[in-house]
């Protein structure tokens, strides 16, 4: 995998503030999710056509605008969980536990399950390499971690094709994930950096928080697909380019110019606010 300048810079900053000589901290336990920001996006979900703040490439935008939620009527698609780069976004109450090598008392792996569909992920801490290009991809990918001071840096590859938002923007199977796990008292912060050379021109960076919650428990989450709408074999839900009638609704309702609604790397940065104000003032649709 490759690191962008952003990722390398973040690693350098973390190394400088790494701090504690005792390094590893205990990340295990039951963690209740704290949703301070992006609540609508993480909860009920974004509107069709809202790609604001996503650094989509031209390919990524076409993919997003072609997406149809009728996809979920196809039985083979119904039991797809969130991939690892989206899963912590929510719903993401979390259980974390460790594997310990008894003679050395070294933690050789961390295990993680998420509330949504009880996906199970392993973060290997024993220095093993990532598998070959021919190995299968999974929803949780293949993760290895190493400590930088008291921060855990996790690299994940071999992730199945997934999504960066639940209204169409895809993340290809060439994507990768870097996470920084940081514990402050009983609060856990994970900053994640999703990179995708196909659908993103820059990384998607998110930070999420959890609070240690010993009373929290996962419930079982078995999924079995059902046919609720009789579709012909091979039905694939999609909109032809330029023919999605739903994507204009968001920008019309909120008065957002189309350029802003379509996201793009420029829209990630604070200075874009001035450009957006100017576009709105100029009556740009």
């Amino acid at each position: 995998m490759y690191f962008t300048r952003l990722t390398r810079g973040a690693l350098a900053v973390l190394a400088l503030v790494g701090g504690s000589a005792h390094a590893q901290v205990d990340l295990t336990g039951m963690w209740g999710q704290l949703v301070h920001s992006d609540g609508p996006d993480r909860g009920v979900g974004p509107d069709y056509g809202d790609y604001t703040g996503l650094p989509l490439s031209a390919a990524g935008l076409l993919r997003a605008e072609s997406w149809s939620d009728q996809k979920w009527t196809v039985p083979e698609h119904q039991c797809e969980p969130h991939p690892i780069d989206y899963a912590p976004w929510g719903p993401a109450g979390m259980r974390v536990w460790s594997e310990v090598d008894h003679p050395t008392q070294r933690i050789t792996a961390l295990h993680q399950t998420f509330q949504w569909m009880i996906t199970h992920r392993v973060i290997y801490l024993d220095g093993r390499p990532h598998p070959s290009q021919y190995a299968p991809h999974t929803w949780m990918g293949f993760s290895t971690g190493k400590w930088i001071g008291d921060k855990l840096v996790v690299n994940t590859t071999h992730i199945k094709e997934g999504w960066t938002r639940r209204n169409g923007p895809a993340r290809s199977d060439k994507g990768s994930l870097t996470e920084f796990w940081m514990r402050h008292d009983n609060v856990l912060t994970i900053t994640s950096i999703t990179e995708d050379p196909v659908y993103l021109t820059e990384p998607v960076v998110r930070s999420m928080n959890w609070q240690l919650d010993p009373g929290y428990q996962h419930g079982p989450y078995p999924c079995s697909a059902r046919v609720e709408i009789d579709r012909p074999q091979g039905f694939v839900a999609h909109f032809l380019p330029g023919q999605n009638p739903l994507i204009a609704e968001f920008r019309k309702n909120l008065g957002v110019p189309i350029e802003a609604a379509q996201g793009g790397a420029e829209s990630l940065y604070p200075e874009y606010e001035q450009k957006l104000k100017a576009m709105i003032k100029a009556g740009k649709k």
Partner: protein
Amino acid sequence: MVKVSLKRRTAASAVVLTLLAVGAAAVQAAQPARRGQAAAPAAAPPLELVTEHVRGNIYMIGGDGGNVTVQIGDEGVLIVDSGFAQNAQALLVEIRKLSKKKIDYIVNTHYHPDHTGGNAVIAPTGEFVGNVRVGVAPRAAIWAHENVLTRVSTSTGSVKEPLIPAQGWPSETYFTASQELVFNDEPIQLIHMPNAHTDGDSVVFFRRADVIATGDLFNTTMYPYIDAAAGGNINGYIDALNRIIDLAIPAANEEGGTMIVSGHGRIADEYDLLVYRDAITIIRDRIADLIARGMTLEQVQAARPSLDYDGIYGATSGFWTTTQFVAAVYSNLKQAK
């Protein structure tokens, strides 16, 4: 015998010659370069074979043209496809790391030389009990749909010799919808998928291990190669993908369960196949819509109907480019109107 028009034979020979060129070094021992064949590229990339365990007694060897599936057991070894001819010895070395037992069967998913090229080298090293005759050297049985035998055994266009030497031709063929085998206590089904990648495609379903080898009906790294001159068609391709999806059952959360060995690329499962099926169907639908609006091929190419998938499956050079894929789909759909 199947009669093939001169135009189709010429087109088929172009495809075949390109595949041979991609195989890097000329097929010297088994198939000397002849007038009319394309010259091999100057420098071949170093061969790196990678073996991955699929499930149980099923393995995949990647890196030699098409992926090779290997089933091992007390009875012997069965392989699905045999890679390029020039890499056959290296493939044998890799197989022998998995099992020293005799190779009883080669099963070919289709006729292309990156999947059949090793037949002539590997088959004589094996032994199928049904082939044992006094005074005849033992050899493995080579199974394939009968159209594979037709394609590899007949000369095409300007190539005067058959595609692969006679000792690599399928010795056992079927012409019905499927063929059953049992080997190493494993029921194995060869299922014909008509007019998809070619007119002789088989998927190989290891029913106990729950593994499907798809040949080039499914690749994780490239668009479907529609060998139209050999009966390939985009609609047949999509039908085949849908039939394979019907065979596959995931374990949980649309992951695992039936494992799928692709023709090129990684080991996969139903979801990966679903992503591929969806992509190809969407591109076909877009091209069909553009044709319905009266666009020429040039206009369709300019509209870039595959833009959002080119970064995953597309290519701008090599033996099968995005441009060629779009043109093939366009041609198939125009002919179907």
